[in-house]
């Protein structure tokens, strides 16, 4: 339902979105994942109609809504809703007023509006704040107002820019489930920007991993984990993401040969769960320095410095972890990426 072709955007300081093509079917939930500044918000703004592409086209279904340098259907005609990264609440209105206004614009009758506003605020857990002004509520509450405002009119295309970033973990789970429910109910094609891996993994039908304005990989979520298309994706996706260990001439770090790596050079993907830690040297182990230990999913994530690089390992909770550890690399790696960034 959304088809992007060779989309490029340049604010005059060099392209920030470069030649992106992708398409998703109606009702899809596309998650954009990528490092800060990679162009996620820019793509969302172009989809919304707030920014005209420099080149390339955007189609909503059969409808060409933007074409670089030629056409850009204005935002108010696209029927899309957007949760702004900056909330963009209307400071002169109350919380309820913010949610209500789009419904008014849509020409809804007052009772229906009242119902929807109440429902949306309820869903976001901010019903008791309805009469407050936007300066009189907390950051997370503001973010929920922004979300409620976008959702209340049920737009056919929903765009989310880090909509849950300022919520606590528990609430985030709640909201995520609400969003999933709404998506299932309305079938609105959605594009969702997030930095939260869990959100990406659970909500997405498709994920686009972006890097410096380019798509690194476009795939269903699980595939990203299982078959990352590049070193960048491997290093970026997953909780924790995979370690990338340099291999030179068949040897880890160019110094610790492993038979099954024979002749290989590049960045080997080594998942955290494939590393082992011991408190005393073992055959083939490398000395490591413990940096931090994080309890997660009943295990411990241990980050240690090995050969000047940070590696993360998963160990059972309660493992003895002295300051100086020894790390055992696996015999081999399923994937070895060529070294160096393909897009310098």
């Amino acid at each position, binding site marked *: 339902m959304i088809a992007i072709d060779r989309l490029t955007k340049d604010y005059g300081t060099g392209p920030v979105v470069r030649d992106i093509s992708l398409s998703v079917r109606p009702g899809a939930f596309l998650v954009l994942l990528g490092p800060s500044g990679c162009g996620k918000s820019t793509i969302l703004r172009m989809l*919304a109609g707030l920014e005209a592409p420099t080149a390339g086209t955007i189609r909503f279904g059969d409808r060409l809504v933007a074409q670089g340098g030629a056409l850009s259907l204005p*935002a108010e005609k696209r029927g899309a809703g957007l949760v702004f990264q900056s909330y963009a609440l209307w400071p002169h209105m109350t919380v309820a007023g913010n949610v209500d206004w789009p419904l008014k614009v849509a020409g809804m009758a007052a009772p229906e509006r009242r119902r929807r506003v109440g429902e949306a605020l309820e869903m976001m857990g901010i019903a008791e704040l309805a009469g407050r002004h936007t300066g009189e509520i907390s950051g997370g509450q503001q973010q929920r107002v922004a979300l409620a405002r976008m959702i209340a*009119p049920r737009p056919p295309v929903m765009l989310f820019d880090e909509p849950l970033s300022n919520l606590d973990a528990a609430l985030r789970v709640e909201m995520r489930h609400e969003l999933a429910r709404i998506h299932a109910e309305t079938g609105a094609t959605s594009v969702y920007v997030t930095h939260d891996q869990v959100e990406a993994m659970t909500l997405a039908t498709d994920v686009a991993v972006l890097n410096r304005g380019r798509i690194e990989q476009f795939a269903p979520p699980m595939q990203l984990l299982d078959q990352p298309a590049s070193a960048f994706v491997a290093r970026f996706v997953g909780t924790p993401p995979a370690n990338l260990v340099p291999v030179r001439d068949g040897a880890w770090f160019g110094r610790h040969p492993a038979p099954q790596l024979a002749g290989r050079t590049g960045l080997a993907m080594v998942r955290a769960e494939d590393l082992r830690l011991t408190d005393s040297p073992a055959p083939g182990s490398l000395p490591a320095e413990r940096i931090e230990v994080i309890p997660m999913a009943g295990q411990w994530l241990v980050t240690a410095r090995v050969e000047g690089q940070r590696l993360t390992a998963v160990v059972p909770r309660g493992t003895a972890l002295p300051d100086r550890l020894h790390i055992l690399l696996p015999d081999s790696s399923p994937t070895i990426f060529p070294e160096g960034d393909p897009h310098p």
Partner: protein
Amino acid sequence: MILPKRLGLTLVVLVPLILLVAAPLLSILGQTLGSAAWSDVLVSRLSRNLTWEPLGNTMILGLGTAIGSLLIGGFFAWLVVMTDVPLARTLGVLATLPFMIPSFATALAWSSLFRNSRTGGSTGMLAGLGFDSPDWLAWGLLPTLFVLIAQYYALVFTVVAAALASLNGDAVEAAEMSGAPRRRILLGIVLPMVTPALLAGASLAFAAAVSNFAAPALMGLPVRMQTLSTRLFGMIEIGQAERGYVLAILLILVSAALLGVGNRLLVGRRSFATISGKGARRHRMKLGRARWPLCCTAMAICFVTTLGPILLLVAASLAPQGSALFSDWTLQFWTGAADPDFARGQAGIFRNPQIVKALVITLGLGVAVAVAAVILGVLAALVLTGPRIRVLTETVNQLSFLPMLLPGIAFGAAFIVLYGAGFGPVPGLYGTPLLLGLALTAASLPFAVQTGRATVAQIAGDIDEAARMTGASFPRRLVAITLPLASRGLIAGALLVFVNVVGDLAIVALLYTPDTPVLSVLSYRYASDGFQQFANAITVVILAISVAATALAQLLKGRRP
């Protein structure tokens, strides 16, 4: 081709600007073409005295007034809006008033202190204490500058206060967190964040100063200081109007250049989006021990620039003799019946059969023009703060700024010529209040546009974008989102326009009809026959209306969260 954003709106704004401002300007320009006035003014043995020296003085006064007004007006705005100074509301009203006080009253206030014996008559208080002020203190640039600043800091105050009132608290708090002392925060963060308002205020103060006639005529002439406005007035008065118009055009060119440079230097690429879509709390800075000293300083300035002149003006409407303002007060000039032994049989102003009608018409005109100018002003402000379109945006900017610099009489005449007779299906407007309204709207545009633009520039882009996402049309967004957020600026703009209209004489004089008497014409009539007290009394009435309008504006602003 994608049409540039806001192209439609820009064109919509340009049409009235061209009709109301560019056309009269061109018609004035047309009168000077082919006339010897250009060479007389620019390159003759006369040009030094006729043009360059007055231009120099004018620029000194304009820039000096702009800077002085910025300092005082900016200080007041900060004090009243951003701090917990005592009596903030009172100070807020007092600091708005000077703009409404006629220059001659402010000049009178200065004179009553520093006047020396150069022009005979009675001398000032200092002379009474045995200190005869030197000429540079009593006459010329310095006192003129003082009078102008004393009046026009109110412009900066009004514009900047409106902008500060909608400043997000957290940016100021961030500055406080850095440990900066208050003055540093004021000068380093608070004022720069409202640069568009400062620029707007300074531009208005500049334009008002360079086009002010009364102050340099009263304070400058005795030492033969001429400005472009005194020259311009004189040239028109002695029948050499072309030269006057050339001077006016010269003034416009120089001012436009300054405005352009100022815009580029001060605004540039920077953003002034201080009304953001993340809710932030309003914030008042604690002054601590400085509270009362600062309050007293402000009060002192208000006394000198506001209460003093008002007192003198009121006295001048009560005292029979201009040389003894504080003796023999009588209400005769206000309410007295005709008495052949008093004021040549002139009855008090409240017995003037036209006063009520004039009052009603003046108010009506003021309100109507304020509404019209503010609507046009806010649209122009949107154009000016939106994405730039080559040439067009700058045209809007300049056209909406320069009416203040056009001589009112020429402006009025041009309106008669252009719209008096009507053309095609358009009926002739001459003699109708509509023509008066149009001309006054044009003349008041700078106030509306500059104030509007200062606050519109503060609204973060995403706030309007969020409204666009809902599918709301431009007019709808304008009414529901932009206008409420810019309301303080718009109210301030409406107030300035109203006051300007109520006090205007130059344009009104040429366009009024006896059916539409206005107060300023009544006042002028009294003055032209030497009934100065009656004229003053009417001026006091105008002032009272302006003060009432200010109070109303304060109320309106106060209602907003």
